């Protein structure tokens, strides 16, 4: 049986949206898939050695708020300084309590399983990101390189 392939494009750089690419990539690798994740735009934040990912309820009416906070804090309240940091700490505490892996752990599990991480060279240049701040083992390439793998993939996801 030929090895299946999963190609993922990770475009988002918030704590909540960091999960789908790493969960799916690590699981697919455990199932025997060859996996590549192409990180572009804000998704490049997920490659930093020191992750400072946050969640924000702003512009996200679907986010469940603890203790009915959505009732007590209308949209303007959510823009108060410190609110995003507070929501992030609460989310991290909840994840820990529920046995959800940290992004650092999932990312490491992906690398152990030989998931290939590719950083979009164009966005690295655009945002003047420093590759020295990225974890080891990241490759740099462009859209054509992505299609070389994605064109042969069984599953291709844009996250």
């Amino acid at each position, binding site marked *: 049986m030929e090895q299946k392939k999963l190609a993922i494009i990770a475009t988002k750089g918030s704590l909540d949206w960091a999960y789908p690419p790493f969960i799916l990539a690590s699981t697919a690798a*455990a*199932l025997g898939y060859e996996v590549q994740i192409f990180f572009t735009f804000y998704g490049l934040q997920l490659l930093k050695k020191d992750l400072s990912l946050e969640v924000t309820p702003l512009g996200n009416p679907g986010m469940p708020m603890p203790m009915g906070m959505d009732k007590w804090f209308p949209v303007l309240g959510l823009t108060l300084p410190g609110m995003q940091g507070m929501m992030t700490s609460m989310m991290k505490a909840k994840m820990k309590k529920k*046995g*959800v892996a940290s992004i650092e752990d999932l990312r490491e599990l992906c690398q152990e399983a030989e998931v290939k991480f590719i950083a979009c060279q164009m966005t690295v240049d655009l945002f003047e990101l420093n590759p020295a701040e990225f974890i080891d083992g990241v490759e740099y390439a462009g859209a054509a390189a992505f299609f070389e793998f994605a064109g042969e993939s069984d599953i291709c996801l844009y996250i």
Partner: protein
Amino acid sequence: MAAFDQELDASGLNCPLPILRAKKTLNSMASGQVLHIIATDPGSVKDFDAFAKQTGNELMESKEEGGKFHFLIKKA
């Protein structure tokens, strides 16, 4: 429950950690050996079934006992 060679307690861990830990443990085992996995994540019941089907490792047993889920997987 049938005999097993190794045990993995994945209690308290959530998706996808039970599967990832199981895969890692199976990697260190020999073909034909049996791994007993204990989990509390209700999603793991369908996940281990799907894991076995896709990897060719045999799911010999899957049951709930005392609020925990038990799986026996034989390495292919």
